[in-house]
C-alpha cells in the first residue's frame, strides 16, 4: 500500500487501513471494501472508519494470532460453542450429582452403565465434569483472550480517530451521512442562532473557519470497553479462585457434642457442635394467618441453627496427638448468618436428625408377658432452665408405697393420687386396672420449712405442673424397673464397650455392632459408621449360667438367635442427637468479583443511557450543508436539530436511510 492512499487530500496522514480520514472524514480510496462502503450510498460509521490494524497487517505469526482473536466473528463463535457445550452438559447429571445409592459411583462405570453408549461418550469427552474439563476451560479462556484483543484493537484507533477529527469535513463525508440536508441561502445571523441553540442543548461546539462540529456524549462510546474491563476482572477473579491461598470450599458433618478438626484449615481449627436447632413455624403465629396453609403443607422450617464453638490448635502437635486447644470464638450459625473467624466463614448448610447417642435395653424373663412396672425412681429439680439444679431423688416401690417421701434436703413429696394403669378420659385421669402397666401420680411437693405445696402430675410420658409456668419444681421419672426384670444396661454408641456387667452378675457381650444396619443378600451389614439405625448381636450370660443366649436387637427388631432363651431383651429407651452440616469457606476473591461486576454495570449504563451525537455544519457558497450522526436514538438527534433550526431558513435534515428503503 502506497503512502499516497494514506495521506488524505486535507493533509492528514492516516494509519494504514483507515476507511474514513480521521480528520476530515473523506472516504479513503481503495479501503472502502473494509467496511463495505463500496456500493452503498451511506457510509458505514463503525469505529468512525478508523484503521483496525488487525485488518491490515498479517505478516508475522504474532500478527496472525492477534488478528484471529481480534475478529468479532471468532468471538461470537467461541461464545456459541461455549453455550452449546454448556447445554450438552445438562443432558446427563454432573458427576457430583451421581446418586449415592448408585451401583457404582465411579463415573467411568456409572455413565456407561446408566445411559449406554451416549453416557460413555459423554464421560470420555469430559462432559461429566464440564466446568473443570480442560477443553471447556480453554474455550472460556479463549473467549477471555478474544475479549481483551477485540477491545484493544478497537478502542485505541477509535479513541485516536475521535481525538483527531476536525470540524471541517469533506463534502462526500457529509452527504453520505444518514442525516443530511443542503440549504442554499443562510444568513450569518441564522447560523449564530443555531450554534447558540446547540450550545444550550449542551453540545460542545467547535468552529474552524466557519465549519462547525457540535458534539455531545462522546464518553458513551467508551461504555463497551469499560464493560469489557469489568468482564476481564471477573475472569481474572475466577482464575484467582483456583489457588487454595485465596479460596477454599469444604464441608464438614459435626454431631452434637462432637469436636473435630475443620477441613481445609491445615488442621489448625476445630469445631464443636453444642446444639443443632430446627424450628418450625407455629400455626398460631401471626394471629393464625397462615394456619390453613401450614396445615395443608405440614411443618415449615423457620430456623436452622448450630451453636458452635471454634478452637485453635496451640503449639506444634502431630496430627493424631491430643491437640492443645484454645477457644477462639463461640456463636450461633444460622442459615445466611454465618460465623466468621480468622479467614474462614462457616455456613449452616445441612443437617441430619435423629442419630442415636445411646440405647438402653432391659433383660426380661421370657415368660413375663405384659410389661408391669416394679418400681419408679423420680428426680426432683428446679424448673429454672438456665440453672437447673437437682434437688433429690426417691424411688417408689409400687408394691409397697409410702404416703410421704422425705428427701435428704428436707423436701417432702406426698402421693396424692396413684393411677396404676393410667389413661385419660374426658380430660380426667382414670385407671384401666390395678396392674401397674402405666403408672401415673399426683404429687404435692413441699419445700423445707414451708407449708405451701406445688401440685404436679407425673406419668411415663412426662409431667405437668398445676402451677403452670409459675411452678418452681419439677418431678421427672429418671429410672424404672419392670417386674421380672433381670436388669437394664445402656450402650453409649460413641464408645460402646464390648461387655456390660449388671449388678446381679449378669453379663452381656456385644458380638457385633452395626451402626447403620441394613440387610444385604440376607446378611447384616452396616451402611456407614454413623449410628442411624443401630443394631446389635448380643450374648446374654445369666448369673447362674455360662451358656450364652444370643439375640439380634435393633430398632423394631428383636430376634432370638439361640433356641430356648430364658430371657429376652427389650428396648428400654434411647437418646438421639442431630448432626449439623457446615460449609467451610475461605474467599478472598469476592471483592474482585464485586469490583468486576460494578465496572461491568458502569460500562453498560455508560453505553446505554448516553448517546454520542455529532452535528456538522459546513458552509458552502451562500448556504450550508448540515449532516448528523449518532450511535443510537436517531429520533433524539433529529429532535435536537429541529429545535436548533426552528424559525430559520435552514432545511431540516432528511433521513437518507429511510429514503433508500
Amino acid at each position, binding site marked *: 500500500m502506497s*503512502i499516497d492512499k494514506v495521506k488524505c487530500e486535507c493533509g492528514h496522514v492516516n494509519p494504514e487501513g483507515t476507511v474514513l480520514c480521521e480528520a476530515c472524514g473523506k472516504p479513503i480510496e481503495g479501503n472502502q471494501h473494509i467496511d463495505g462502503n463500496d456500493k452503498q450510498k451511506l457510509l458505514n460509521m463503525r469505529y468512525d472508519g478508523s484503521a483496525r490494524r488487525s485488518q491490515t497487517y498479517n505478516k508475522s505469526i*504474532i500478527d496472525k494470532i492477534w488478528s484471529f482473536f481480534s475478529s468479532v466473528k471468532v468471538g461470537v463463535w467461541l461464545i456459541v460453542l461455549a453455550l452449546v457445550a454448556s447445554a450438552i452438559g445438562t443432558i446427563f447429571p454432573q458427576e457430583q450429582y451421581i446418586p449415592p445409592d448408585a451401583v457404582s459411583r465411579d463415573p467411568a462405570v456409572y455413565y456407561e452403565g446408566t445411559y449406554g453408549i451416549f453416557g460413555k461418550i459423554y464421560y470420555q469427552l469430559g462432559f461429566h465434569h464440564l466446568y473443570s474439563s*480442560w477443553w471447556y476451560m480453554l474455550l472460556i479462556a479463549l473467549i477471555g483472550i478474544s475479549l*481483551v484483543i477485540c477491545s484493544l484493537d478497537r478502542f485505541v484507533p477509535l479513541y485516536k480517530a475521535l481525538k483527531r477529527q476536525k470540524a471541517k469535513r469533506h463534502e462526500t463525508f457529509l452527504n453520505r451521512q444518514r442525516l443530511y440536508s443542503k440549504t442554499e441561502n443562510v444568513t450569518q445571523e441564522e447560523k449564530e442562532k443555531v450554534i447558540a441553540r446547540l450550545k444550550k442543548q449542551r453540545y460542545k461546539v467547535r468552529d474552524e473557519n466557519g465549519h462547525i462540529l457540535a458534539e455531545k456524549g462522546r464518553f458513551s462510546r467508551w461504555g463497551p470497553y469499560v464493560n469489557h474491563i469489568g468482564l476481564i476482572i471477573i475472569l481474572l477473579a475466577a482464575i484467582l479462585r*483456583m489457588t487454595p491461598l485465596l479460596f477454599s470450599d469444604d464441608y464438614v458433618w459435626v454431631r452434637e457434642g462432637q469436636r473435630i*478438626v475443620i477441613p481445609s484449615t491445615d488442621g489448625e481449627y476445630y469445631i464443636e457442635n453444642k446444639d443443632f436447632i430446627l424450628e418450625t413455624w407455629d400455626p398460631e403465629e401471626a394471629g393464625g394467618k397462615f394456619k390453613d396453609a401450614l396445615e395443608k403443607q405440614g411443618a415449615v422450617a423457620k430456623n436452622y441453627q448450630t451453636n458452635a464453638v471454634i478452637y485453635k490448635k496451640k503449639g506444634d502437635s502431630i496430627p493424631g496427638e491430643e491437640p492443645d486447644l484454645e477457644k477462639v470464638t463461640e456463636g450461633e450459625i444460622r442459615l445466611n448468618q454465618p460465623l466468621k473467624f480468622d479467614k474462614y466463614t462457616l455456613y449452616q448448610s445441612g443437617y441430619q436428625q435423629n442419630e442415636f447417642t445411646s440405647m438402653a435395653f432391659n433383660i426380661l424373663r421370657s415368660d413375663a408377658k405384659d410389661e408391669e412396672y416394679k418400681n419408679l425412681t423420680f428426680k426432683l429439680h428446679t424448673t429454672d432452665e438456665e440453672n437447673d439444679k437437682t434437688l433429690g431423688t426417691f424411688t417408689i416401690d409400687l408394691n409397697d408405697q409410702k404416703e410421704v417421701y422425705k428427701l435428704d434436703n428436707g423436701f417432702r413429696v406426698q402421693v396424692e393420687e396413684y393411677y396404676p394403669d393410667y389413661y385419660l378420659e374426658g380430660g380426667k385421669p382414670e385407671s384401666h386396672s390395678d396392674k401397674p402397666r402405666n403408672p401415673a401420680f399426683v404429687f404435692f411437693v413441699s419445700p423445707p420449712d414451708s407449708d405451701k405445696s406445688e401440685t404436679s402430675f407425673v406419668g411415663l410420658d412426662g409431667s405437668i405442673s398445676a402451677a403452670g409456668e409459675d411452678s418452681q419444681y419439677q418431678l421427672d421419672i429418671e429410672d424404672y424397673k419392670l417386674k421380672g426384670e433381670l436388669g437394664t444396661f445402656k450402650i453409649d*454408641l*460413641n464408645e460402646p464397650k464390648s461387655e456390660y456387667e449388671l449388678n446381679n452378675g449378669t453379663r452381656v457381650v456385644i458380638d457385633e455392632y452395626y451402626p447403620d444396619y441394613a440387610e444385604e443378600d440376607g446378611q447384616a451389614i452396616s*451402611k456407614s*459408621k454413623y449410628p442411624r439405625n443401630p443394631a446389635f448381636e448380643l450374648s446374654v450370660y445369666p448369673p447362674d449360667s455360662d451358656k450364652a443366649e444370643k439375640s439380634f436387637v435393633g430398632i423394631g427388631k428383636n430376634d432370638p438367635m439361640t433356641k430356648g432363651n430364658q430371657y429376652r431383651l427389650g428396648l428400654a429407651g434411647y437418646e438421639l442427637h442431630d448432626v449439623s452440616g457446615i460449609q467451610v469457606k475461605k474467599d478472598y476473591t469476592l471483592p474482585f468479583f464485586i469490583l468486576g461486576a460494578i465496572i461491568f454495570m458502569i460500562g453498560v449504563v455508560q453505553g446505554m443511557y448516553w448517546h454520542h451525537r455529532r452535528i456538522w455544519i459546513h458552509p458552502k457558497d451562500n448556504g450550508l450543508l448540515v449532516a448528523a450522526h449518532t450511535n443510537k436514538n436517531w429520533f433524539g438527534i433529529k429532535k435536537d436539530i429541529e429545535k436548533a433550526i426552528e424559525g430559520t431558513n435552514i432545511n431540516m435534515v432528511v433521513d437518507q436511510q429511510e429514503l433508500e428503503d
Partner: protein
Amino acid sequence: MTERKIGPNKKKKKRNRLIFRSIILAILLVAVVYALVSNLSKDETKIDTGDQAPDFTLEQVNANNELESIKLSDLKGKGVMLNFWATYCKPCEAEMPYMEKLYPAYKDKGIEIVAVSLDATQLVIDRFIDKYDLTFPVLHDTKSQVMDQYGVGPIPSTFFINPDGEVVEIVEGALTLDKLEGYLQQIAPK
C-alpha cells in the same frame, strides 16, 4: 512529509506494535496456562507422589501388637504401606485378607503395613480384627485428623511410602493380591 521521513518512523512503529502485541499475548498465555494447570492438577488427595509423607501419630487398636501407638516418623528406614479403611466399606474388607497374607513375609523384608481405620467406634474395629485375625498394626483416627491431613476422599485409599519417607504410589480403590505385592516390592528397603 516525504517518504524517507516516514520510512524509519513506520519501522519503529511496526516494531513497537509487535512488542506490544507479543507482551499482551504472552500475559494472556501465562494466565490461561496457569488456570488450566492449577485446575487440572487438583487431585482428590492433597498428597502427590514424590511428596514427603506427613507425620502423624495414632493409638494402636490391635490388642496383640506390642506397640501402643505408632508414629510414622519412627518407621523411617522401613517401607510403609499406609492404608485408609473402615469396617463398613466392602472393598476395604476384600483387600484385608491379602494384606494379612503378605504381611509376615514382607515384615521380615523391612515393610510395615499400617491400617488407619476411619470408623467411629473402636468396638467395630475390634470385632473386625478378630474376624480376620489381623496381625499388622491397626490405628484409629478418632478425630479424622490424619484423614484430613492426607486428604482422603473415598476409601480404600492406600499410600505406599519408601524408606526415605517419600510417597511412591497412591492407590484409590481396592487392591488385588498381585498389585499389592508389586507395590510392596517397590517400597522394600534395599
